[in-house]
C-alpha cells in the first residue's frame, strides 16, 4: 500500500515538475523575444538591421553561436503543407514572409525556389555593374523581398523592357516561378495537422539537461552565471528566513500553550484579536515604516545601515562580525517574524486545546497525571504533529514574504535578485529562479507528507484515492 502510494505520488510530482519546466521554458522563450537580435543590438550599439535577402546567412550563424539552430521541442504540430525543416529558417522577417507565401501557394519547394531565384538574381545584380539597371533592380528586388502578397508580387514583376536587358535570364526564371505560384493553391489535405518528431536533439532538451547538471545559463544583463548569482543571494535569504522561523517558534510555542491552558476570560479574546491583527499587518507596510525610522539616526536606529550589506558580505559575514551581522539582520527578521509568530500562536493554541479535549487526555487526567507531564509528554507531541505539514508550506510562503522585505531593506537576497532581474529584463535568471522555487516547494510538500505518515501511526495512505487519510 505504502509503496504503491509512494510510486504514484513521486511520479505525479515529477510529471508536474516537468510540465512546469516546459511551461517556464516556453515562457522564457516568448518573453525574451528575439535573443539574436537583442544580443547583437547590444554588441553593435543598436544598429543590427539586415535585409531579408542578406540576413539569413548572418543571422543563422549568430543563432548557431547561441545554440538556437535546433528545433524548439521534441515535436511540432503543424499543417502538413509545412516542411518538417521549417524551424531552420531563422530570421523573423524571412520566416513571416515565407510562411505567408506558403499558406497562399501550399507548395514549399516553389516558395523555396522563388526565394533562391530572388537571392541569385540579387547576387548577380550586385556583381554586374551597370549603372541604371543595377540601381533599378537592386531597389526592385529589395522591395520584392518584403512582399508577401502574391497579387502585389505579380504586379511588381511588370517592368519596362529596357531594364531587363542585362539580366534577361534571371528575369525570365523569376517570372516563370511567380506565374507558377499564382496558379498554385493549397488543397484541403494540406491543412491536416501533422506531428513531426525531432528526437532528443532540441532546445528544450539541451536546456533541461543543463539545468539538471546545475547550469542555469548566463544572465542576459551582465553575462554572469545565474548559478553564481543565486549562490551569492541564497545565504542571506536562508539566514533571515531561518532566524524568522526560529524566533516565531521561540515566542509562539510557550504563548500558544499558555493560551490553550489558561481558562477562557474576556482578556484572552482580546489577545486573540491582537494576534489576528498582527497576522493581518502587511509586512511590507511595517518594513517601509520601520525604514523611515531607520533612516533617521535620532530615533536610535543607527545600528542599521541600508548600505552595509556588501560591507558585511565582503568581511566574512556572521563568522567574523556576529554582533554587527545580527543587528543588521534584526529589522528584516522582525518584519518577517511577527506575522508568522501570531499565526503560529493561534495555530498551536487551537491544536493544543483540540488535543486537550481528546478522550485519552481525559483518561490520563483521571489517572492522576500531573499538569506538566500531561502537557509536555501527552499533549504537545500530538499537538505539534500537524506542524510538519505546516513547515513545508511555510518555506515558499516565507520566500514570498521576504521579497518585499528584502527589496525595502536593500538586502541582497533572492527576493531582491528576482525583482532586480525583472526590472532589468534578465529573463534567464527570473525563470530559473521560479523553477528552483517550484522544485523546492514540491519536494517540501512531498517530504512533509511522508514525515507525517512516519511520525503518526494513525495516518494511513489509501492508494486508490491518491491521498493521505
Amino acid at each position: 500500500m505504502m509503496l504503491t502510494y509512494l510510486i504514484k505520488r513521486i511520479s505525479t510530482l515529477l510529471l508536474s515538475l516537468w510540465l512546469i519546466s516546459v511551461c517556464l521554458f516556453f515562457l522564457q522563450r516568448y518573453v525574451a523575444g528575439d535573443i539574436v537580435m537583442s544580443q547583437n543590438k547590444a554588441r553593435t550599439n543598436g544598429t543590427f538591421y539586415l535585409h531579408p535577402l542578406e540576413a539569413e546567412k548572418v543571422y543563422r550563424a549568430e543563432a548557431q553561436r547561441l545554440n538556437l539552430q535546433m528545433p524548439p521541442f521534441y515535436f511540432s504540430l503543424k499543417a502538413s503543407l509545412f516542411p518538417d525543416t521549417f524551424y531552420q529558417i531563422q530570421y523573423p522577417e524571412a520566416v513571416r514572409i515565407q510562411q505567408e507565401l506558403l499558406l497562399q501557394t501550399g507548395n514549399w519547394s516553389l516558395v523555396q525556389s522563388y526565394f533562391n531565384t530572388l537571392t541569385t538574381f540579387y547576387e548577380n545584380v550586385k556583381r554586374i555593374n551597370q549603372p541604371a539597371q543595377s540601381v533599378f533592380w537592386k531597389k526592385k528586388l529589395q522591395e520584392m523581398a518584403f512582399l508577401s502578397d502574391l497579387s502585389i508580387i505579380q504586379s511588381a514583376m511588370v517592368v519596362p523592357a529596357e531594364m531587363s536587358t542585362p539580366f534577361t535570364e534571371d528575369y525570365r526564371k523569376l517570372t516563370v516561378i511567380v506565374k507558377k505560384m499564382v496558379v498554385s493553391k493549397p488543397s484541403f489535405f494540406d491543412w491536416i495537422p501533422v506531428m513531426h518528431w525531432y528526437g532528443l536533439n532540441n532546445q528544450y532538451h539541451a536546456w533541461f539537461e543543463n539545468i539538471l547538471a546545475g547550469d542555469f545559463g548566463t544572465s542576459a544583463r551582465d553575462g554572469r552565471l545565474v548559478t553564481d548569482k543565486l549562490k551569492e543571494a541564497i545565504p542571506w535569504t536562508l539566514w533571515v528566513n531561518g532566524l524568522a522561523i526560529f524566533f516565531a517558534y521561540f515566542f509562539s510555542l510557550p504563548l500558544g500553550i499558555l493560551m490553550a491552558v489558561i481558562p477562557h476570560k474576556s482578556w484572552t479574546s482580546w489577545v486573540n484579536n491582537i494576534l489576528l491583527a498582527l497576522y493581518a499587518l502587511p509586512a511590507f507596510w511595517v518594513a517601509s515604516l520601520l525604514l523611515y525610522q531607520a533612516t533617521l539616526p535620532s530615533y536610535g536606529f543607527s545600528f542599521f545601515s541600508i548600505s552595509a550589506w556588501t560591507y558585511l558580505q565582503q568581511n566574512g559575514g556572521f563568522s567574523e562580525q556576529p554582533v554587527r551581522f545580527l543587528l543588521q539582520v534584526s529589522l528584516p527578521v522582525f518584519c518577517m517574524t511577527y506575522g508568522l509568530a501570531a499565526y503560529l500562536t493561534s495555530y498551536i493554541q487551537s491544536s493544543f486545546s483540540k488535543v486537550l479535549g481528546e478522550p485519552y487526555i481525559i483518561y490520563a487526567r483521571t489517572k492522576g497525571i500531573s499538569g506538566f507531564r500531561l502537557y509536555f509528554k501527552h499533549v504537545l507531541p500530538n499537538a505539534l504533529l500537524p506542524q510538519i505539514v505546516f513547515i513545508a508550506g511555510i518555506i515558499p510562503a516565507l520566500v514570498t514574504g521576504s521579497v518585499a522585505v528584502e527589496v525595502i531593506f536593500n538586502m541582497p537576497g533572492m527576493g531582491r535578485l528576482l525583482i532586480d532581474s525583472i526590472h532589468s529584463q534578465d529573463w534567464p535568471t527570473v525563470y530559473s529562479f521560479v523553477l528552483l522555487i517550484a522544485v523546492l516547494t514540491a519536494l517540501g510538500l512531498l517530504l512533509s507528507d511522508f514525515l507525517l505518515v512516519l511520525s503518526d501511526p494513525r495516518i494511513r495512505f489509501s492508494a486508490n484515492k491518491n491521498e493521505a487519510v
Partner: protein
Amino acid sequence: MSIRYFFIVVIFFALFGDWIANEKPFYCKYNGINYFPVWESPMVKLGLKKWPADFQNGNWQDLNFEKQIKTLIPYSPETIDRKNLGLKGPFDHQQINSLHDRHWMGTDRIGRDVLSGWIRGFRMALSVGFLSVLMAGITGIFFGGIAGFYGNDRLKLSLFKAIFLVGWIIGLFFWISQGLATHWQNKFIIYWQCIWLMLGVIGYYIPSRSFSIALPVDWTINLMVQAIDAIPSLFFLLAFLPLIKNPGIIDVIILIACVRWTGIARLVRAEFLRIRDLEYIQSAKLLGIHSFTICWKHILPNALGSLWITFAYSFAGAILLEAYLGYLGIGMPPGTISWGSQMQQVRESPSAWWLAVFPGLAIFLFLFSLQKMGEKMESTRFKI
C-alpha cells in the same frame, strides 16, 4: 458587528467614491446654464449629453463658475494640483484658497491628492478581491467538483464520444499552437471541429456501453493543481506578467484567479468526495436524477458552508497580492491608482510618511476584517 459596519463603509466608498472626491462640482452655473457635472459625467462619456468645450478639456479648478457646490473633497484621484506639487504633507503649509481645498492626507510627488486616491483604492481593492474570487470560485468549483464527483473511474465515455473528444482537443491544441488566428487555419479548424462534433452527435445516439472508457479526470486535475501549487502565488504572477504586453488591472485579476483556484478546487474536491458517498446522494442517483442536477442542487449547497470561509481568505489574499504588486511596481499600468501604487512612492522618498501610513492602514483594516470574518464563520459554522 463592527466588522459589518466596516464593510458597509468599504462598499459605500467603492460605489460612491466619485461623489465624495471629485474635481467636478456637484452643481454649477456656467454662462447662465445649470449643470450637475458629477451626475452628468457618465452620460457625457456615453455621448448622451453635451457639455461646453471648456468643461471637456479645461481644468475644473480654473473655471469661473457663477455658482457652484463642490464635492466634499474637491479633487479627483488623477487631478494634479500644480500649486501643491512635490509631497506636501497633511501638516505642511499648503497653497490653498480655503480650508475646503485642503489636502487632508497631503499630496504625492506630482501633486495628486492622497485622500481622493485613498478613496479610489477602496474600489480597486474591492473589485480586485471580488472579481478574482469570483473567477477563482467558478473555476475551482468546476474542476474540483468534476474531480471529486467523478474520480478516476466514474466518468465513462462511449468509444465514439471518446474519439470525438480526442479529435476536438487535438483541433483545439493545433489551433492554439498555431497562434489562434490566421484566415486559412480558422477555416480549417471550423471544418475539423464540425466533423468531430458530428461524430460526437452520432456517437451520442449509438448505445455502446460495452466500449466505454473511464477518463482519469481526478488524476488530470490533481496534476494541474499540483503543478500550479508548486509555484508560490507571487512568483506565479511575476513569471506570467511579462507575458502580457501592457498589463492592466484586469490581467492582474485574471492571473490572481489563475493561482487562487487551486485551493478552492482542492477543498471542493474533498467536500464532493465526502458528500457523494452520503445516503441522500445515493438515493438521488437511484431515483435517476441527472448527475449535473445532483452536483448543482444537492452536493454544492452542502459543500458551500466551508467554501465561504475559503472565499473570505482568498479575498484577503487577492487584495494583499494586488497591493504587493502595486508596491513593487510590477504589472500595473503607470497611471493606476491603488493603495499599493500610492505606497510605492514611499520607496523613492521615505520621508513622505503620509503616503505609507494611510494606504497601509486601509490595507491592514481590510485584511484584518476579512480574517476576522473568516474566523467568525469558522467558529459559527459548527454551532448551527
